[in-house]
């Protein structure tokens, strides 16, 4: 009974549509000023969440398969069984990391967002955040082949750890750039930055006349393009929030560790509370350079 329902929802889901919608976000189609007039990204939230989880699983495979791919050193204590367990744990934990980060940061984004004077509702903030995470995971998935290639020929756990940190930072920075720009566009689209409201309309109209003149060049904004005048105070508030988001994401990843699985210890689902993300990265770096 339950199985049938699960089966139906897995096979009945329209993956084509869902990934098409991801593509609309990536290419900027979904975040043009004209399509944000209702104050939200007009895509179904269910599809975005499914895409987010699937991409998370994909990168979870790339990150968790380290011990299965590389030749184990003589001092390694991990067994094949442990390595398989780690892979399955990562497949579940990596999407979970993003879902939990979403839950932790959503309330504060909503509140800050209201504080700077936007009238975006809860759903539109949620959609914005899920879209940003989907962008981050797309970037991670596209770097997945490189992570797997390095996993294949590297025995050093610290190197792979740092490689994953770099990959995730690249994804994170681009996703946050998207979040900032889109939030700004959403606010502009609703003409809520009151002093700038008139100017926005003018800029927008200018763009349209340009289009008519040249006829060829489209004025489509890319997903990461800056647009329109900015309100400094609002920008700073949101910037602070972005820093908080980054720190929370990093620490969340530390709480849910291990994702890669050290060859020098047996499989653990979670590790004890100790140290923090930044100390661990520093430690790996020192280990790589000096030890």
């Amino acid at each position: 009974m339950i199985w049938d329902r699960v089966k139906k929802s897995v096979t009945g889901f329209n993956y084509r549509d869902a990934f098409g919608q991801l593509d609309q976000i990536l290419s900027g189609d979904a975040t043009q000023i004209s399509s944000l007039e209702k104050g939200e990204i007009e895509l179904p939230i269910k599809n975005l969440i499914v895409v987010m989880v699937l991409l998370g699983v994909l990168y979870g495979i790339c990150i968790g398969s380290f011990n299965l791919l590389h030749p184990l050193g003589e001092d390694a204590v991990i067994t094949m069984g442990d390595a398989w367990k780690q892979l399955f744990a990562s497949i579940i934990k990596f999407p979970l990391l993003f879902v939990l980060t979403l839950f932790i940061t959503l309330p504060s984004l909503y509140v800050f967002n209201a504080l700077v004077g936007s009238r975006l509702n809860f759903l539109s903030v949620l959609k914005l955040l899920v879209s940003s995470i989907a962008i981050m995971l797309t970037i991670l998935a596209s770097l997945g082949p490189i992570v797997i290639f390095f996993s294949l020929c590297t025995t050093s756990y610290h190197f792979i750890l740092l490689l994953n940190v770099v990959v995730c930072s690249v994804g994170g920075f681009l996703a946050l750039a998207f979040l900032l720009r889109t939030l700004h566009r959403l606010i502009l689209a609703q003409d809520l930055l009151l002093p700038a409201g008139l100017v926005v309309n003018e800029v927008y109209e200018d763009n349209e006349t340009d289009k008519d003149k040249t006829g060829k060049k489209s004025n489509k904004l890319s997903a990461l393009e800056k647009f329109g005048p900015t309100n400094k105070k609002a920008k700073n508030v949101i910037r602070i929030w972005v820093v908080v988001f980054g720190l929370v994401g990093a620490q969340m990843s530390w709480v849910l560790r291990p994702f890669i699985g050290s060859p020098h210890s047996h499989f653990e689902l979670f590790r004890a509370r100790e140290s923090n993300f930044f100390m661990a990265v520093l430690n790996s770096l020192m280990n790589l350079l000096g030890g």
Partner: protein
Amino acid sequence: MLIKLADNIIRAKPEVLESGSTRQTLINLAKVLCMSGMFYGSVMGSFAGIFGDRFFQVIFSAVKVPMLLMVTFGLSLPFFYVLNTLYGLRDDFKKVLRSLLATQACVTIILMSLSPLTALWYISFDNYRTAILVNFIMFSFAAGSSQLVLKRFYRPLVESNPVHLKLLRFWIIIYGFVGVQMGWVLRPFIGDPNSQVQFFRDGAWGNAYLELFRIIFR
């Protein structure tokens, strides 16, 4: 046909980017890359002689040089595609792809033109370590001078949208990062006269960057 294309590549003629179907052009560029890559590879692998067992080293190296470039290209491409999409440049991506593959082909064409020098070096000196150094210089020189062609191919793209230049830097960083490791994994290319002929060297399956750290810091 392919020779004409090769000539167009080193002159960075706009036909390479504009004429014909994208698919066909990419296939032709890959053919040029494979052929000239195999040419340099076979010269490269002939250090310890070309007869008997050593003939296989020649074959292996001939296969490995194009492989090095193509696999690195393939691994770096997904990220670059996503990046181009995010920055709104997907409409130009066909041209971008042609320019990048043409630049790869250009590297192998330059290498092919340098192969007589490598051969002369092999005939004159029998030190294995300097042979490695010579090949390293050849590859660096070819990679460096192919940037001239890349710049020319990219000029119209950058004129239409300056963001292309920014992304090109990303490409060079990521391609270089993967390429160095790929070169390390695919060793031996030259073939040490004192060891057996192998496609992959035993124990070569390591990390180039860690080796580099080891040399610098210890």
